């Protein structure tokens, strides 16, 4: 059975990120002849000696003309074991916004480091954001090994440096791979140039990283998304609660509670268009039918009676501010979307701003601006049924939306 893995890549052009992605796509045969012919022509036109695989990820005309980079591009490739969705985020400008946008639901992040330059400020930022978003697996690809004669000492120095910084972060799984994206060493095939490296090639890691324990299968959470009422002769009394399982495992017969009302009942059946199922777990989209006739609507949450989420209007969260036109300040009011529920929220306090380079907490800060991260206290107009983000990325996350422009201005992770 082929599974899906969502991968985020972080790094700048200088680190060889585009070359690495081009190499992964090309060597896994996800690049087609017409695409290859196009970059071959472009490489020749630029006077390059070899086909520049970085051009595979080349952008839109708007980007070339205006010298901007759109925050995230998605690429797809697959092997017999897994299908990969690669969220490719540019590293230079607006790194926080870009990476948060591209990596919020990633299973794994690849952080690129140029072995000659070592762990720079930018690599540390990428690692920090990956840990803030709680991406379960981080792979540090130490690139350009060909330029240091495939030196083990150079690789080890980068690893030690990175590990030291990572101890200050909450990183669950950290792996290092020495590569040369340009020559393909340890990208798809293991390299003969680095016999001292006894780990796997990058693609092998991506294919085999163990993800089964990344989901929360303990706390049953079902945000009601849509009420299905056919009102047809054949399904006259049908009333089903459609949604995507956000945590835990649901089975017919389970004792459940509907929040916020607090009514308890049992699951009568779990329906799909393919017929009823015996269990539902993340990320399945199903329809629950309940034994009792209750008033349940979108934004409610179905969970186990003895394992309930937190219910509250006063929330503490880490916020990434993503908007260049506005800023977050005490007293600011926003629309807030959490699971399938909208509420309004007011900022009660900016507790601190986090320096993403030093991890220093500036408690005198009174605002968050573009690309800034901080801890904020919010009050919402109605209670949110939530878990800590570290326990559940679905029931622990929210977005803030500007009331005037309706733009998404912040990503929030509940503490």
């Amino acid at each position, binding site marked *: 059975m082929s599974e899906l893995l969502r991968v985020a890549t972080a790094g700048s052009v200088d680190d060889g990120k585009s070359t690495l992605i081009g190499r992964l796509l090309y060597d896994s045969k996800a690049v087609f002849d017409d695409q290859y012919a196009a970059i071959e022509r472009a490489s020749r036109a630029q006077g390059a000696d070899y086909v520049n695989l970085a051009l595979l990820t080349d952008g839109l005309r708007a980007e070339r003309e205006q010298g901007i980079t759109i925050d995230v591009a998605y690429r797809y490739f697959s092997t017999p074991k897994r299908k990969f969705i690669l969220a490719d985020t540019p590293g230079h400008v607006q790194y926080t916004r870009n990476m948060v946008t591209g990596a919020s639901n990633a299973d794994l992040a690849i952080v690129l480091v140029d072995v000659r330059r070592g762990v720079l400020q930018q690599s540390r930022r990428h690692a920090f954001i990956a840990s803030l978003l709680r991406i379960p697996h981080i792979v540090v690809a130490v690139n350009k090994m060909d330029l240091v004669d495939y030196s083990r000492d150079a690789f080890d120095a980068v690893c030690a440096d990175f590990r030291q910084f990572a101890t200050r972060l909450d990183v669950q799984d950290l792996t290092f791979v020495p590569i040369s994206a340009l020559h393909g060493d340890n990208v798809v095939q293991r390299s003969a140039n680095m016999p001292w490296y006894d780990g796997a090639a990058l693609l092998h890691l991506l294919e085999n990283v163990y993800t089964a324990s990344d989901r929360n299968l303990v706390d049953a959470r079902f945000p009601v998304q849509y009420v299905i009422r056919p009102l047809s002769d054949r399904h006259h009394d049908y009333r089903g609660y459609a949604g995507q399982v956000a945590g835990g495992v649901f089975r017919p017969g389970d004792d459940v509670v509907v929040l916020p009302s607090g009514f308890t009942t049992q699951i009568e059946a779990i329906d799909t268009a393919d017929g009823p199922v015996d269990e539902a777990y993340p990320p399945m989209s199903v329809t629950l039918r309940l034994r009792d006739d209750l008033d349940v609507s979108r934004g409610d949450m179905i969970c186990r009676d003895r394992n309930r989420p937190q219910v509250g209007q006063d929330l503490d969260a880490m916020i990434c501010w993503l908007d260049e036109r506005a800023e977050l300040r005490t007293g600011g009011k926003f629309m807030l979307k959490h699971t399938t529920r909208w509420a309004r929220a007011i900022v009660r306090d900016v507790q601190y701003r986090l320096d993403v380079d030093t991890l220093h907490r500036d408690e005198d800060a009174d605002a968050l601006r573009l690309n800034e991260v901080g801890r904020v206290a919010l009050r919402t107009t109605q209670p949110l049924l939530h878990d800590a983000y570290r326990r559940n990325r679905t029931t622990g996350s929210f977005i803030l939306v500007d009331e005037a422009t309706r733009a*998404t201005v912040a990503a929030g992770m509940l503490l």
Partner: protein
Amino acid sequence: MSYRLSHLRTLEAESIHVMREVAAEFERPVLLFSGGKDSIVMLHLAAKAFWPARLPFPLLHVDTGHNFDETIAYRDRRVATLGVQLIVASVQDDIDAGRVVEDTGPRASRNRLQTVTLLRALEQGRFDAAFGGARRDEEKARAKERVFSVRDEFGQWDPKQQRPELWSLYNGRCAPGAQVRVFPLSNWTELDVWQYIKAEGIELPSIYFAHRRLVVPRDGALLAVTRFLPLAPDERPVERVVRFRTVGDATCTGAVESDAADVDAVIAEIATSRITERGATRIDDRMSEASMEDRKREGYF
């Protein structure tokens, strides 16, 4: 139990989630249905998302008038089975009313004209969200578009003004007059679509499978000889065994030589294909490096 889902079931669950979000949060959604395989899969997913209820939104076909007969027959059959409302917005109407001027000559195409018809139909129906079957693997402009793509009152896509799209928290709120295009198949590839067609036993118009047909080679593609295709004096139709990898306007959608007569054979063919889907078949994309990007900025799908 491992509680694992296959990649196809994961994609299915994500697409269904997207469709239910739209049905819950918008007043008047509509599903753009062309009769091509992607919109067929999208319609199949929509039917599953709301089962056992009917689709809570109508279908809209932007009809260039240059259709393959098999596609229209399929469309009408499918609409009847599902019991949904179909709105046909005709490019011909806009030509007749003088709202657009048709190109002439052998390379004339109504592809670009569709945008005007699409925007008119969305406005007339007061639709605030339109589902499209576009996939990010199709083209580099699409690779950068969000699942919920907010368009201004002219339907234009501005790649610089895209909203961050986080987790599965879609923000469909927009200013009055603006509209949202929603792409539930964003993360599907051509191969995923075909594997899903096989897994679900979805019926397709017969032109997706190998058949004998009169075609004319043009610009490196094989165009079907139809009543809509004017031939240049030096062009001679030839008979070939072909199938269509994409199905759109009959005058600009090329066939590929293929003997893949069923779904398994098509999957085997795609898995080893060395040419992208649009590169093989879409003359409209070859006009320039950025033609899709330009059309999207004008309000295209």
